[in-house]
């Protein structure tokens, strides 16, 4: 078990109903994809946010990562839609 700060942006934030939280994650959750799957089982809002995993991007400690990235040692993990700045 490890405690991680999670942050959400744009429609991921709206669907989860949460901008920021600290969560204890079971040790079986090893990758970003595992974490997204774990979160999607929490309630309807989280299920909606993560219903299309390919549309949700992630960052570990403010650096973009792929779904297979390991979350061990992460302090802050962010989930968000594809970016639309510029």
């Amino acid at each position, binding site marked *: 078990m490890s405690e991680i700060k999670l942050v959400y942006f744009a429609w991921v934030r709206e669907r989860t109903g949460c901008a920021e939280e600290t969560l204890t994650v079971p040790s079986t959750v090893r990758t970003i994809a595992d974490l997204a799957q774990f979160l999607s089982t929490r309630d309807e809002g989280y299920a909606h946010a993560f219903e299309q995993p390919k549309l949700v991007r992630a960052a570990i400690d403010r650096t973009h990562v792929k779904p297979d990235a390991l979350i061990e040692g992460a302090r802050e993990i962010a989930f968000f839609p*594809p970016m*639309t700045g*510029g």
Partner: protein
Amino acid sequence: MSARRTIRIQSEPFDSAKETATLSALGSDIGAVATFIGYCRSENGRLKALELEHYPGMAEDEIGRVADEALARWPLDALTIIHRFGVMVPGDGIVFVGTASSHRAASFAACDFLMDYLKTRAPFWKKEILADGRVGDWVEAKADDDAALERWKR
């Protein structure tokens, strides 16, 4: 001389003329300054405004990484990147990119590269506010923007 790297993430408007003048005044060997300004637009009156959300901290970090990549690839003397967040109305500048070098090729290419990377990697998200004031949808990312990155792969 080492290149001057200026990155600002802010809600306030920017003065593009002032930013350009700062780049051109850096030294007697600046021969070319390229600038790009991205504006909020109404889409034929459909939109009243855009609201830009960002990831504080990561926005600075990620734009910094993109800036470092540009500085490693082209002989630039300076670059300035300003990206705004918050509510913007049509005509407001959202992003400013300016690159300064001895010759135009590096300035043009680096400016183009920086915009392609900002579009797809800088953690900003646009939400539409419709002409009648109702909150609209989040703007969807374009496949074209991802395709544009392919040009810079090496």
